[in-house]
């Protein structure tokens, strides 16, 4: 996608609106929904970098989130290290885990569903581990004390977390924008489109895939810290929940794989459907069914996700319906 001056302007305006939103929105509920949308978009983008751009689908993306959550929480609870530092350690741990999982699976040539399943296995392994070792608090989990302040990445008002999530979102968009215009991004896309040809054309496919999964891991790590400081409690089922692994791939696919704004659009749809369904229908879980139907529709008719819808109409304007 070319990112011309008009788009830059639109992007800037959207950012400004997002930055000013808390002034206009006094409802804690709506700010919270927006925070969740941004958070899901962020973690969806982390998945999208490896899954959408590099074409390596993972079913266990949550492992980085969980590991990040545990990293900063253990540092805080056990060693008294504030999360403002802990979040960077969480990023490093996530990236390291990415390297480990990536090295083991990519080096042995795992692709497609095999790679996806191996990531799921790793996430499950970590969940079981977190459940059984002592320093994670085992099945009881970890309780974090409520002590608002930037040092603890905790905030009294929802506005604080809103800006925190917006910050994460902007970083994820910046990374995706960079991918769109850099050699590294082009190489990831080449790997997605045809790994053998990419290798033939001088791309170190192993290295590129490792970098991609490390970026994903680092981003997931930060997301873990965000979650832990917002909800002040983590345990193995939360930290390594399959549902979150699925959510991050869903928003990317629904929004548009390998696109800058796909995960954000997917996240908006996911949460809006969720909230609307919850408002009108008093059956828990029904929103997911609605979302499932949307997903089926999108996969059948919009293989490029919702972003593809905009592109298609734009394409028609440009070259007369080609």
């Amino acid at each position, binding site marked *: 996608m070319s990112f011309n001056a008009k788009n830059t302007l639109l992007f800037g305006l959207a950012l400004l609106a997002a930055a000013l939103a808390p002034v206009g929105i006094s409802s804690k509920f709506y700010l919270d929904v927006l925070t969740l949308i941004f958070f899901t978009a962020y973690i969806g983008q982390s998945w999208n970098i490896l899954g959408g751009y590099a074409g390596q689908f993972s079913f266990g993306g949550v492992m980085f989130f969980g590991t990040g959550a545990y990293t900063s929480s253990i540092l805080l609870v056990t060693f008294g290290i504030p999360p403002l530092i802990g979040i960077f350690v969480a990023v490093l741990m996530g990236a390291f885990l990415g390297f480990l999982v990536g090295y083991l699976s990519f080096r042995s040539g795992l692709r497609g569903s095999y790679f996806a399943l191996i990531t799921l296995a790793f996430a499950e392994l970590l969940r079981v581990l977190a459940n059984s070792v002592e320093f994670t608090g085992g099945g009881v989990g970890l309780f974090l004390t409520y002590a608002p302040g930037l040092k603890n990445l905790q905030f009294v008002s929802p506005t604080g977390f809103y800006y925190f999530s917006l910050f994460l979102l902007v970083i994820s968009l910046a990374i995706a924008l960079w991918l769109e215009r*850099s050699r590294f991004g082009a*190489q990831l896309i*080449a790997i997605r489109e045809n790994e053998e*040809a990419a290798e*033939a054309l001088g791309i170190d496919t192993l290295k590129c895939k490792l970098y991609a999964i490390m970026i994903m891991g680092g981003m997931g790590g930060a997301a873990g810290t965000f979650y832990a400081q917002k909800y002040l409690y983590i345990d193995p089922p939360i930290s390594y929940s399959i549902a979150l692994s699925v959510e991050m791939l869903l928003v990317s696919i629904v929004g548009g794989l390998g696109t800058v704004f796909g995960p954000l659009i997917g996240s908006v749809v996911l949460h809006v459907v969720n909230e609307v369904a919850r408002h009108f229908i008093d059956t828990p879980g029904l929103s997911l069914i609605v979302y499932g139907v949307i997903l089926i529709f999108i996969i059948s008719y919009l293989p490029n996700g919702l972003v593809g819808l905009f592109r298609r109409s734009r394409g028609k304007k440009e070259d007369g319906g080609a």
Partner: protein
Amino acid sequence: MVLEVKQLTKRFGGLIAVSEVDLSVVEGEIVSLIGPNGAGKTTLFASIAGFLKPDGGDVQLNGQSILNLKPHKICQRGMVRTFQITQPFAALNTLENIMVGAYSRTGDKALAQREAERVADIVGMTSQLHQKADGLTVAARKRLELARALATKPKLLLLDEVMAGLNPTEIDEIVDVIKGIRDTGVTIFLIEHVMKAVVNLSDRTYVLNDGKLIAQGTPESVASNPTVIEAYLGHGAAAAMAGEGAA
């Protein structure tokens, strides 16, 4: 000597696909490799370019063994291959496809784009730069395959049947393109079935049959070699042809 292959052997289980092949390519040459279907030509190419791990022998590029190098390293050292079945990056357009090749030499987007445009001009794809690769014709895909490889600035280009599936006009065009590439100083080693092109292009020809080299020399001498004729047409064919010629 740009490329030197010594006693190269590749087995698949009990099948010896390539057996103790010796060959060499000198700088500035166009050398071709011909042989009947299933002779092992593509396997030999894949073993040379690092896509298959040979079971024996050595491959040297500019005097250095590249035997255990991965394809991307070999590409960086100046040897690149194309694929018989074209492998375009389908979702990308022509320009972006070629830029992937150019990125092997530069990390700068503008430079890569300029290089891609230059290469597109050489292979005659300037008018199709913004067309998506999966919408290209077979002939255009073959050119794209060539262009992408060329954008990596190779010293030696391995072309695997770039003319298969093309009509005579398209073949004449691509023969000119290949000659043009050679004139820019790139050495070319190609697998080809189209004999007219082989004769027209190559300085030397190797013939592979059942994994073994059975003949080499100028294309004309190879084409009249009885062993080669028998490999293609069956036992006794050479004698029959000679008989016909005498009658």
